Structure formats: C-alpha cells, structure tokens
C-alpha cells in the first residue's frame, strides 16, 4: 500500500512542521544541558542501515539530522548504505536512538516521494 501522489503537498508540509518542532525542541534541550551546571551529555555513536535513497534524499536526510543539534552525522558510506550518527542524549540506549533515526528517515521518505509506503511498517495505516 502506497500513498496517493496527490497527498504529497500535505505530506511535505507535515514533514516541514515536524522538522521545525524537532529543531526548536532539540535546540532548547541542548542549550538547557549546557546551561545546567555540572550536567554532562551522555553521547553515543550508532551505525544506521539506510533504505534505498536517492542522492537528493540522502543529502536531505544528512542535513535534517545534522541541523537538529542533538544529532550529528559523522560518516556516510553510500555503497554500504550505512551512516554513523553521533547523539548527545543516547545514554547507552543505542536501539532507541537508532529507531528514532529510522523514524526520521521514514518521515523524510513520506514527505518527499510521490509514492511512499503508507506507514513505516509498510502496512496500511488504521
């Protein structure tokens, strides 16, 4: 089940709105971390297996992840379709961090493709 091409403008706006919210929330989180005396980040670096993305989509994904200040792409291997991402608030939970990055990828794909999987699991949304 894929999305209708006609809904692309709506999906793109949903991506933009989600990104702006994410951008502001994580900026405030990082600033709060810095300004809280004695508090240190709990960083981590995870390896993420990417879906098949076009060059433009991959660039946009790297840009979105890097602009939100809590996450930072350190390396991309396009042939192996993997990237390494540094996070400020991983706190040892690599799986939660990885799945949040995969969620970002799914949101991006839904926001830019004419026909995207209707939901992350590929099943029809309820």
């Amino acid at each position, binding site marked *: 089940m894929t999305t209708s091409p006609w809904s692309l403008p709506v999906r793109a706006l949903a991506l933009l709105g989600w990104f702006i919210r994410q*951008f*502001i929330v994580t*900026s*405030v989180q*990082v*600033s709060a*971390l*810095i*300004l809280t005396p004695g508090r*240190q*980040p*709990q*960083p*981590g*670096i*995870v*390896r993420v297996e990417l879906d098949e993305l076009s*060059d433009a989509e*991959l*660039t946009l994904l*790297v*840009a*979105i992840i*890097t*602009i*939100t*200040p*809590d*996450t*930072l*792409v*350190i*390396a*991309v*291997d*396009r*042939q192996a379709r993997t990237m*390494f991402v*540094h996070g*400020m608030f*991983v706190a*040892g939970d*690599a799986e939660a961090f990885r799945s949040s990055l995969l969620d970002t990828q799914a949101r991006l794909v839904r926001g830019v493709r004419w026909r995207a999987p209707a939901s992350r699991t590929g099943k029809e949304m309820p």
Partner: protein
Amino acid sequence: MTAELAVTIVGSALLILGAFVIASAAIGLIRLPDLYTRTSAIGTAAGLGVSLIIVGVVVLDFSALNLLKGVIAIVAQLLTSAIGSFALARSGYLTGSRPVATTAPDELADSAASPRDRQIDDGRALGDDSATS
C-alpha cells in the same frame, strides 16, 4: 501601547534571545568534553541563534521584500551550517579527534576494528564517496 512600541519590544526580545543562544553555545564550547559534543553545541548557535537574530531583524525592519530575504537567509543558513558541521565532524574524525570515553556505544570505533574499514585509521577511506565534492 502603540504598534511601533510592540514591534520594538518583540524584535528586541528576538535579538536578545538569539544572542543568548549563541552565548550559551560558546559556554558549551568551553564546557563540553569532545569535538562532537562541541559541534552539537555550535549547532544551536548556527540554527536557532542565527535564525532568531534574522527573524528579529525582519520584525524590526519589516517589508515584504525583507520577509522574503529573511526566509531565504534562514533556509540558506540551516543548509550550509548542516553541511559545515558534517564536513567538520567527518574531517575531525579522520584527523584523529576521538570521542570522549563516556561515549557509549561507539559503533564507529567498533567498526574501525573490522578489516573493511581499517583505512579509517590512516585518515582516508571512510565516506570518500559521500557528498563533499
């Protein structure tokens, strides 16, 4: 309260908030333990800090044209600072800035132990095909 006064107050508040975000990023630059957390701190200044200042300028000096220029400036600033941060983090890693020991997990260091990626250590191969041309 006149409209002009309201504009001055809102615009000034945006400018001060933006400068405050940039100053707090600078504190992070001193306080945080390694290159990657520092780059993340600078991300707040590059994104939110500069954007707030641009919005403040547009509010104080408002016209339709300035609004358009402001939107373009914010989009350009976000995209270029993302490219800059990525290039910096990547070249930092390649030139030997290691993450602080509390970084857990560090799957990049783990993968560097495998034969395929060993060239990372001599500062070349990793991500040579990535978007940095």
